[in-house]
């Protein structure tokens, strides 16, 4: 098992090192890093803008690049939160707590230097996990019938919507809405047109790019226009030599790094708990383990290293269920999965055996991309810091153009631009009403496959709904769903102790991702 995985990985490196694939990977991490630094632009919007532009390139190159944007943004986001105290991206919100005080003490460079290294360690572990766990998961998942797939999807959807940020019940409502939007268009089996309201353009369903750019582009810009705090550039003068950590810093970071890695990789295994949760859990763990918990928040290097490592370890680990089961854990993964589907690749357990070049090429590109990111981040830190000062008033109009042209390029059709506009407007209303739109994407991507498998399961069982609890594996998934719901209800209804978590404290100033 291990040897086959290693041989496959070797081939993966062959794929990822092909010049054009290497170029896409480099471009991806470069753009990702840039976007991560820019306050006000998220990886979701960026991936959606780039998505239509990847239709022309081969699936391997496309997915390497889009994935590169995603983990590249994780590196960039740390810069923004440590130097500016701006949690541009949710996973980095806790990094601000100790990162910014370090900056104020003039040790921002050290924090950044250690973070880059910690990120690499976390990511490396996440990738290793992916190499060895994915084939095992696939082996199990290949035995699944429609009933198992259905209940697994249900678990994935429930976890993705209730464990993410915000109110769980609103999350579930968004998932249902997403499933609904996935249904729009012609029915696969009967060809009946559903919810098209007479618009022939909607026969093929709502465009993934239009949905993503409406929700994470237009709605997001409406949410943050003229809401930007004055950017404080007092501390952003960082040079390469400021980044070198002292011996003591290294000594203090080793164990937090290992703990962060473990927390992150465990969080990655629970569907629905993305990097944001991993970073919060890691910070809380570190504080508990520390001999001086009272010093957290005053610029402890442990409080920077541990969450950053766990974020990266969980980001890479999130690819495991996405690639091996076809069940995305969060909106970014859903988008990447959607990108694969647009390229004509069916996600699911058969993906690794049918398209080994994609899976192993992707794994290999993670190593390459992460090494590239370390190389990009250390010598070029001065350049990234300069990007921080780009004002929002230049950023969002340019981004609006990229949104429009991106959606247009998907089908060369102005109708899609209008569709994006409508979705964006509705998305903003949902944002204002306290909904997080991310689960919509999750439901949207899984919707058609969920319906297909549900129908098949019902057909096989002759209309017996109990099939989901009668088959053992499926029953386990359903039981986990029940535990999840009951657990959520329990924690909701239990009074007190709610305001205490770091999550609630940092969550307020965050724009919805």
């Amino acid at each position, binding site marked *: 098992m291990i040897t086959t995985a290693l041989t496959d990985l070797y081939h993966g490196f062959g794929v990822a090192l092909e010049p054009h694939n290497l170029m896409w990977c480099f471009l991806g991490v470069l753009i990702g890093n840039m976007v991560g630094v820019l306050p006000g632009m998220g990886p979701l919007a960026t991936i959606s803008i780039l998505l239509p532009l990847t239709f022309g390139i081969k699936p391997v190159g496309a997915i390497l690049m889009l994935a590169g944007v995603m983990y590249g943004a994780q590196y960039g986001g740390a810069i923004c939160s440590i130097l500016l105290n701006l949690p541009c991206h949710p996973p980095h919100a806790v990094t601000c707590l100790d990162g910014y005080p370090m900056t104020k003490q003039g040790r921002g460079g050290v924090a950044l230097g250690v973070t880059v290294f910690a990120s690499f360690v976390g990511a490396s572990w996440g990738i290793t996990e992916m190499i060895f766990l994915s084939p095992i998961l696939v082996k199990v998942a290949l035995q699944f019938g429609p009933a198992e797939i259905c209940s697994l999807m249900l678990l994935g959807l429930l976890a993705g919507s209730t464990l993410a940020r915000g109110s769980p019940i609103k999350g579930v409502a968004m998932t*249902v*809405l997403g499933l609904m939007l996935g249904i729009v268009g012609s029915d696969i089996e009967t060809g*009946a047109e559903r919810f098209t309201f007479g618009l022939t353009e909607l026969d093929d369903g709502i465009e993934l790019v239009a949905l993503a750019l409406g929700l994470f582009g237009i709605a997001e810009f*409406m949410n943050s226009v*003229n809401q930007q705090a004055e950017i404080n550039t007092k501390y952003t003068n960082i040079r390469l030599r400021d980044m070198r950590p002292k011996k003591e810093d290294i000594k203090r970071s080793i164990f937090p790094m290992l703990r962060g890695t473990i927390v992150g990789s465990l969080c990655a295994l629970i569907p629905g708990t993305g990097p944001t949760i991993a970073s919060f859990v890691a910070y809380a763990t570190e504080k508990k383990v520390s001999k001086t918990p009272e010093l957290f928040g005053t610029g402890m290097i442990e409080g920077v290293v541990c969450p950053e490592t766990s974020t990266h370890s969980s980001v890479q680990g999130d690819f495991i269920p996405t690639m091996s089961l076809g069940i995305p854990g969060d909106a970014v993964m859903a988008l990447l999965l959607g990108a694969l589907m647009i390229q004509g690749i069916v996600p699911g357990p058969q993906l690794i055996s049918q398209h080994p070049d994609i899976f192993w090429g992707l794994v290999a590109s993670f190593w390459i991309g992460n090494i590239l990111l370390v190389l990009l981040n250390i010598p070029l830190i001065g350049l990234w810091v300069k990007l921080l000062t780009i004002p929002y008033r230049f950023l969002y*109009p340019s981004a609006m153009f990229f949104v429009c042209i991106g959606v*247009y390029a998907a089908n060369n059709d102005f109708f899609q631009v209008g569709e994006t506009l409508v979705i964006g407007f509705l998305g903003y209303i949902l944002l204002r*009403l*306290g909904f997080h739109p991310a689960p919509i994407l999750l439901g949207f991507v899984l919707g058609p496959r969920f319906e297909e498998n549900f129908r098949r399961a019902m057909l096989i069982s002759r*209309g017996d709904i109990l099939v989901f609890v009668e088959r053992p594996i499926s029953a386990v998934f359903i039981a986990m769903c029940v535990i999840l719901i009951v657990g959520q209800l329990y924690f909701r209804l239990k009074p007190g102790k709610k305001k205490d978590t770091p999550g609630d404290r940092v969550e307020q100033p965050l724009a919805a991702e």
Partner: protein
Amino acid sequence: MSASSEPGQKLVLSRLVRKRDFYAGGLMILFGLIMALKGPTYNLGTLMHMGPGFLPTALGVILIGLGVAIAATAIPVPEGEDEDLLTAEPQWFAWACILASPLAFILFGAIGGLAPATWACVFVASLGDRSATWKGCFILATVITVFGVSLFHFVLQIPMPVFKWSGL
């Protein structure tokens, strides 16, 4: 919804109309109703042979239930909390600019081509910022147009003419 007496109920209602969650739940109920009422027209089928209307109807009913639950969470919230339906300073003009920007793109794209569409799209969007000046927006729009046309037309070769005139 088990308020004890008549005046009590009235108080709950007058408080509810200012709550965000009340509208959030209401919107979900509305979406759910659309699905649940329109779903059956697509043929429900049986549980064994599900028709195209089955899942939409089921999802609609679930969404109505969730909507009621969300709206109900607004009841115990005391006065003054969770009432920020709009942001502290509503940005009506900026919102309108952002929404008008894709419209400008469609309009100018359909009659004038890529360059006018880009320019109009960026220009309109940039007007929405608090500190925007005519000159600043003009320069930004021009820069992005030059950059955008060279990237998307010449490098990525999006099939959209740079300039054209197809009348009004």
